[in-house]
């Protein structure tokens, strides 16, 4: 069952992988909510960011590296942009292209932030960057900037290890 949901959601994201890197899909919160309710066999890493957010842009390469190193083993990295919708063409797409972003990039167009921030995590104040790692039966939330690739990778590894143990 979980597999089917995962395949459904991931396949809906798939077209992005085969088109140019500047493809950004605009989504509503229900797409993010589906990701948050997965119980995947390999972790899904969701990062909330924006092009104008300096600390977000600083940690972005770590997520790209994570995608590069772990996508083959089934880890999914989803970059959820909170850029303004009116800047999708003028700012977000050029940014994604310029930085050759290979991870999935979604533009979350859901301006009533108060209606969904607590659904990501009740402890989240709304400041970005913020990251969620989801694996089978486990959700971990980070309201912070990762200071290095190693720190992000270690967080992911903990999820992978606990998944391996439970299998």
């Amino acid at each position, binding site marked *: 069952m979980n597999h089917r949901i995962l395949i459904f959601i991931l396949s809906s994201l798939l077209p992005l992988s085969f088109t140019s890197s500047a493809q950004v899909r605009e989504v509503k919160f229900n797409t993010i909510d589906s990701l948050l309710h997965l119980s995947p066999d390999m972790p899904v890493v969701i990062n909330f960011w924006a092009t*104008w957010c300096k*600390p977000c842009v600083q940690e972005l390469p770590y997520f790209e590296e994570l995608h590069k190193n772990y996508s083959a083993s089934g880890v999914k990295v989803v970059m959820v942009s909170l850029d303004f*919708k009116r800047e999708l063409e003028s700012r977000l797409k050029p940014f994604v292209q310029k930085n050759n972003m290979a991870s999935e990039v979604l533009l979350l167009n859901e*301006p009533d*932030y*108060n209606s969904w*921030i607590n659904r990501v995590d009740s402890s989240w*104040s*709304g*400041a970005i960057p913020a990251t969620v790692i989801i694996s089978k039966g486990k959700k971990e939330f980070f309201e912070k900037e990762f200071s290095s690739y190693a720190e992000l990778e270690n967080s992911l590894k903990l999820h992978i290890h606990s998944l391996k143990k439970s299998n």
Partner: protein
Amino acid sequence: MKTTFASLGILLCSFLFIAATPDGAYAPGSKATDFKLKNIDGKMVSLSDYKDAKGFIVTFTCNHCPFSKAYEDRIIALHNKYSKLGYPVVAINSNDKSIAPDDSYEGMIERAKEKSFPFVYLYDESQEIAKTYGATRTPHMYLLKKDGKNLEVKYVGAIDDNSDDASAVTKKYLENALDEVIEGKEVTTNSTKAIGCTIKWKGTK
């Protein structure tokens, strides 16, 4: 056994409480502290200077953040509407200029001039006030009501439900809270969350 459950319950409750208000951040019902901060005209300003005010719309904001910029006109409109009713805007910039150079004191003077801010724009250089209030992002709004010598927090959070497009706003969270406070009613929605730029704390990247 019962004691274990009870203490577990207390532990859980205190954890939940901490989770909801990190670092003792102000929440509705908190007593807010006054401050003495430098305005863009060089004068020191305290809330106690406003003898006739009934309360304040305290906003943690800054010059560079796109969300702060998107809300500038709406904050000006709030001040123009509510200062007459006893609730002026008091804007505070707490960002560390070594991380966000645009948010220097000089940058504040420039931005206030460009936008003709009708309210005070104060520099919280030590970041103490942002820390005390528990502000985490910009803009981050606190509606305070005077109660004798005390200042009670009546609302914490966002201005409304659409930072991108003022014409598409459907829920004016802060204005609703203001109207309810002015009418002497309980505030229906006294806390909201919003996406925002982080406050740039000293010693971080």
